[in-house]
């Protein structure tokens, strides 16, 4: 046995590590023109039609484009389409396409390509995860190479929003043919960058596409997306210069990073609402006075300060600012005295016991429900907390088979209307057709005025008329208060001082069409 040489081995090792530390040059060399994004979510597949990850869709904007797209302020802009016309019955959409656009593999972008993509997305047999976004497409016809006509099964006024969504991308028909199901590993689009490499555990790399139709763009050579799940690590990477962009950033660290001044700390509004749904089929939440009382009992201003370190806006309507057709009805004032009074009127002078679940198990959500529990206790409501992990949430909330037996009472959740339009901020959450297990109406709210008008708005194409309908819907919901209306949290992100033209959009997606590195 040679165990006695251990001390020497140890000495070598120790020396080795001292040497290692002193040899390591400060900073990390970066390729010129390479911009590194440290993002929170890992990519699951690169097929935009088969994923729900905002991260995947954000990266998709590098190599894919849709007919329409959203700019950094969530305003619809034409991309591969130049314009469109809607028939008076709202059933037929005719698109005029941009000319002279080529896919990365050299295939021409034209009406045929649009048809191939819409046919794929609307075909049930392809079993794509975003099928319900395209299931109203009855048929797509090629009129001439630059004109395409889409017929819907029923009028659907937010159709342009649905195809402006980052899942409705145009994939090269040749590539679809060639790769088949493996298109998720080999994206070929018309975007400013073309796909280079995707190492699942490490990064996704794209490079400048020389044949891009927007002349002079893009202005950087390569982009690297690195998924980094830990928020502190992400922050450290931007501080050391290993990444040029980091999102999301822990709210409580934003101020400190701002004071240090080494990187730009940007605080931008979002459309992701934070709310607590109350199961209105169950006592005591079937009483509107109780629901009002709870809304009065929560100090939302303090909620934003405590949980989001002030990086939040009060919710001043059912649909948040930034989503099309949002209507301002609030904010709901904080008034614990009034809350107690209402509870007394409703027959709960000493409050009651209930359960409050958080739909997510991250630390911010945990903090949120703890804060709410404490606020509710002030008016005598004892809420037991439970923080659900994703599988539990699905089992106990989303898949609850019988509405009357559903165990959910108060549920803390968030929602971001991915089409940027009121329909997707209301229908999946508050229409009676959306009760679980169908969609996410976890309040089990049902109001005939709301249901009828949400359905009606889908058939109306005139803007003013639609705005009027959505106003009625939102006023009604605000009055019925099936939710505790909390706030919308801001998107806080870090940007290297040399980097410009990169934004986090209100829907948490990334926008970087004008990306530039000084």
């Amino acid at each position, binding site marked *: *046995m040679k*165990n*006695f040489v251990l*001390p020497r*081995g*140890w000495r070598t*090792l120790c020396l080795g*590590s001292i040497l*290692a*530390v002193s040899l*390591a040059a*400060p*900073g*990390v060399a970066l390729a010129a023109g390479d911009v590194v994004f440290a993002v929170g979510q*890992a990519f*699951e597949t690169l097929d935009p039609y088969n*994923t*729900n990850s905002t991260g995947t869709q954000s990266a998709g904007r590098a190599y894919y484009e849709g007919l329409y797209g959203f700019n950094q302020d969530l305003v619809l802009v034409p991309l591969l389409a130049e314009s469109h016309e809607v028939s008076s019955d709202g059933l037929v959409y005719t698109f005029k396409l941009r000319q002279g656009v080529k896919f990365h593999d050299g295939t021409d972008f034209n009406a045929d390509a649009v048809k191939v993509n819409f046919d794929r997305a609307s075909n*049930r047999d392809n*079993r*794509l*995860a*975003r*099928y*319900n*976004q395209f*299931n109203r497409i009855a048929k797509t016809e090629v009129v001439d190479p630059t004109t395409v006509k889409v017929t819907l099964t029923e009028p659907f006024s937010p159709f342009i929003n649905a195809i402006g969504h980052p899942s409705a991308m145009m994939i090269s028909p040749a590539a679809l043919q060639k790769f088949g*199901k493996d298109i*998720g590993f080999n994206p070929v689009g018309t975007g400013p960058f073309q796909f280079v490499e995707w190492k*699942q*555990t*490490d990064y996704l790399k794209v490079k400048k596409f020389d044949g891009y139709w927007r002349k002079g763009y893009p202005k950087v050579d390569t982009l690297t997306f*690195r998924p*980094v*799940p*830990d928020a*502190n*690590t992400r922050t*450290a*990477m931007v*501080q*050391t210069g*290993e990444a040029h962009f980091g999102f999301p950033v822990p709210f409580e660290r934003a101020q400190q990073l701002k004071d240090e001044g080494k990187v730009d700390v940007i605080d931008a509004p979002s459309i992701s609402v934070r709310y607590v749904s109350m199961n209105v089929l169950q006592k005591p939440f079937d009483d509107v006075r109780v629901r009002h009382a709870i809304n009065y009992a929560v100090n939302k201003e303090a909620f934003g300060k405590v949980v989001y370190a002030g990086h939040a806006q009060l919710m001043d309507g059912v649909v948040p600012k930034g989503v099309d057709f949002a209507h301002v009805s609030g904010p709901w004032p904080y008034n614990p005295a009034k809350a107690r009074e209402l509870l007394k009127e409703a027959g709960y002078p000493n409050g009651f016991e209930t359960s409050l679940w958080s739909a997510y198990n991250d630390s911010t959500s945990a903090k949120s429900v703890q804060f709410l529990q404490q606020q509710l206790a002030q008016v005598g409501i004892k809420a037991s907390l439970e923080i659900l*992990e*994703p*599988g*539990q*949430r*699905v*089992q*106990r909330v*989303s*898949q609850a088979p019988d509405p009357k037996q559903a165990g959910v009472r108060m549920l803390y959740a968030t*929602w971001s209307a*991915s089409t940027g339009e009121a329909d*997707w901020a209301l229908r*999946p959450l508050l229409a009676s057709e959306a009760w679980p*297990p*169908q*969609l996410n109406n976890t309040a089990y709210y049902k109001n005939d005025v709301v249901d009828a008008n949400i359905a009606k708005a889908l058939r109306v194409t005139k803007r003013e008329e639609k705005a009027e309908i959505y106003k009625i819907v939102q006023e009604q919901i605000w009055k019925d208060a099936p939710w505790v209306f909390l706030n919308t949290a801001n998107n806080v992100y870090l940007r290297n001082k040399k980097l410009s033209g990169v934004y986090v959009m209100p829907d948490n997606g990334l926008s970087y069409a004008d990306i530039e590195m000084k």
Partner: protein
Amino acid sequence: MPSYLLKRLLGMLPTLMIVVLVVFLFVHMMPGDPARLAAGPDANLETVELVRKQLGLDRPLPEQFLTYVLNLAQGNMGVSLRTKLPVTTEISTRFMPTMLLTLTSMAWSVVLGMLVGIMSAVFRNRWPDRAGMTAAVSGISFPNFALGMLLMQIFSVNLGWLPTVGADSWRHYILPSITLGTAVAAVMARFTRSSFIDVIHEDYVRTARAKGASEPSVVGHHALRNALIPVVTMMGLQFGFLLGGSIVVETVFNWPGLGRLLVDAVNMRDYPVIQGLVLLFSLEFILINLIVDVLYGLINPTIRYK
């Protein structure tokens, strides 16, 4: 010896088969529906059912089990529900980073831990012992995610000496292996110390001194060898745990290892990946146990294998 090894290796098979069955049942009994999770919040019931079909989860459970076992017999662990990549690919791309990090962490921590343990035992209740054990207790008590974040803040952000994340060069290994190895070193130190103290009062140690053996030879040869059995057992266990991938360290340093894969798989109820990982971890533990048993014989020749 070879026949002993063969017997032990064959004995693994029934164990692994039981693991396969238990893991399959356990995984499918977990609350949560992978189709709903994969389809996401925007999907309605119809879309969820489409995704369920796409993932092959609409078939009856016994049928799914049979397919799984038949495929497994051919070395096919199925396809990840989340990424659609083969489970063997998912696991193999992450195995080496975890293995290398485990090896580097174990190497320094075992050497340092044993050294501190021996010093503490030899100088029992004097200052080297106190210092060593204080360090060891601190090493066990300090949570490793905090240590990782602290090290990163100092050496990457403030001093700029070392990179924060990735596993590309040897410099990437320094911080994670320190973070991961600290607790192991501390455990090893405590174990070596107590085992050594037991041995050092034995008659044969006194005999060795009486016959005039030098003190280093007494400590390094007569005592250490006998004290090593429990230490090696502990080492095997620690090695097995680290090979499972440390979730905390892998998250903090963005290490492309097995721990994070397991967390992602459990969160999304990615059944094939969870099954594959648990199977791998069981196999690793069985093999490590076997290696530890063989080491016993090398350390103490009086142990015989039949």
